[in-house]
Structure formats: C-alpha cells, structure tokens
C-alpha cells in the first residue's frame, strides 16, 4: 500500500483503538473489580512501553551519544519538561559536534 493511504489509516486506527480503551473500562468493569495482580500489570504498562521505545539510546555505540543520554537522564530527574528538553538538545548537539 502507498504511504499516502497508510499514514491516514494508521492515524484512524490509533483513534479507534484509543476510543475503545476509553469506553472499554466503563463497559467491562463498571460492575466488577480487578484483582491486585491485574491492577499491578496495568499500572506497569505505560512505563514498560516508554522505556522500551527509547531502549536503543542505551546501547548507542558512540561515547558522545551515551554521555548525552546520561545528561538527559540527570536533567529529567531534576527539572521540569521544557528545561529538560533544552538541556538535552543542547548537550546532544554539542557532544555530536565535538566528540
């Protein structure tokens, strides 16, 4: 299929899937409760997905990239979103240039 069609289709699929999650909990769980184990798994889901998506950064071959990641990690731990992004982008750009 051509990308012209696949991109809008993917966007539509996202919208459908997400709406299903919004009404799904209401429909399925309104009259019962989840086990603590099921709750623990559901709570872990977003974090597991986020860390998996950025995992390649942790095994980047170049030392400059790894150092940039370490700086980003430190910033993310201490600062709000926007300063973190700024520190991270500047550090990455500089390290790429000089290392």
């Amino acid at each position, binding site marked *: 299929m051509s990308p012209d069609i696949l991109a809008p289709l993917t966007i539509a699929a996202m919208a459908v899937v*997400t709406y299903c999650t919004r009404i799904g909990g209401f429909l399925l769980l309104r009259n019962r409760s989840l086990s603590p*184990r099921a709750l623990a798994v559901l709570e872990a889901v977003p974090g597991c997905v986020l860390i998996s998506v950025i*995992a390649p950064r942790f*095994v980047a071959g170049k030392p400059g990239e790894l150092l940039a*990641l370490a700086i980003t990690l430190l910033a993310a731990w201490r600062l709000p979103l926007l300063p973190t*992004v700024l520190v991270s982008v500047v550090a990455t750009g500089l*390290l790429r240039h000089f290392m």
Partner: protein
Amino acid sequence: MSTGAEFRRGLRESLPVLIGFLPIALVLGAQATAKGFQSWQVPLMTGGNFAGGSEFVAVGLWAVPPDLLLIAAMTLLVNSRHLLMGAALAPLVRHLPARKIFPSLFVMCDESWAMGLADARKRGIFSLPYYLGTSAGMWTTWVLFTFIGAFFGPMIGDLSVFGFDMAFTAVFLVLLRGAWTSFKAARPWFVSLAVAAPTYLVLPGAWYVATGAISGLIAAFFLAEEK
C-alpha cells in the same frame, strides 16, 4: 448552577493545565513532521486520538510508510490505563443517559479525568458540564498547538544535526519520572530495558518495543504481591 456556568468553571480551572500543554504540544508537532508526517495529519492524529503519551510513541515509531499494526498495538498498550480510568468513572456517571456518556468519554484524558473526579469528591456529585469544560479547553489547545508545532517545525531545518532528536528521549524520561513511585514499583521497567536493548541490537525493525514491553509486563505479573 446552570450548565453553561459549570462548563465555564471547568474551562477556567483547567487554565494552568493548558499552559502546561503548550510546550509539549509544540515539541510533539515539530517531531511528527521531522519523522515524515504531513502537517495536516498531525491535528488529525492529536484530535482523533487525544492521548499524548501514545502520540509520542507513534511519532517515535513513525516511518514512511508507517507500520500500522505495530503503532496500533503500542497505542493500545500505552492507553490501556484508560480502562482503569473509565472503570473508576463508571459509578459516578451511571445515572446519565448513554447518549451523554459515550461522547463524553471520547475526551477523557489523564488531566480532565483527574479534575472531574477531584471536583466530584469535593462537591459530592459528578458535574458533567464541568468535566466537559476542562476537556474542551484541553482538546482545543492540544490540537491547535500540535498543529502549530507541525507547521513551524520544518522551518527550523534538519533537527538531528543539532541534537533535536534527543528531545523525544527527554520527553519520555520526564514522563517516566512522573510515573515513578518507588524502585520496587519500577522493577518491570528495568526488565523491559534489559530485554529491549539487546533485542534492538540483534533483530531488525521495531521488535525491540514488543519484546521489551511484553517481558516487562510478565515481570509485573510475577512481581505483584498477592493480597
């Protein structure tokens, strides 16, 4: 109080949240076009999906052409927390007719859900127009500013030369920090990382996301203490 007044109260009280949305929306929009989104496709995604975390994941995995099944599956995983949120909301809206509940759930995001529930706790009753007021401002702000980010992003040029591609990693790490409660609770994340990173090195494509996410969830299942 009248419906209109309640709606306006929700809109007014959501203002600080809207200001917080601005930079995230701009970054998301700019990254989306850098990854190959057409600028008109960005508000389509952010308006129809309206769940920021999954949109950052989709942009991170985006290619031309995109892998529809992978992105749909990851959207489902990231947004599975909505199942819990909807379930928590259910007893408060049970008295309302379905024709009001189902459209209202379309705009349920972390922030509008939290505000609606906090207001209900304070006042003893869930106010649908208040919740819709908070949601309306959030939806409009999100769609508008992701589009502005998408529109002006390309004018800055090739972002990876300057390190702009790291912005997306930074956003994810801040989101993880926000979800962090304790090392114990975060153990499944480390399992995900320990599996996803080697998978990335040995397998082509985006398998590392699936293997990492699933092994983290298996770990969460076995690490959860029985009550």
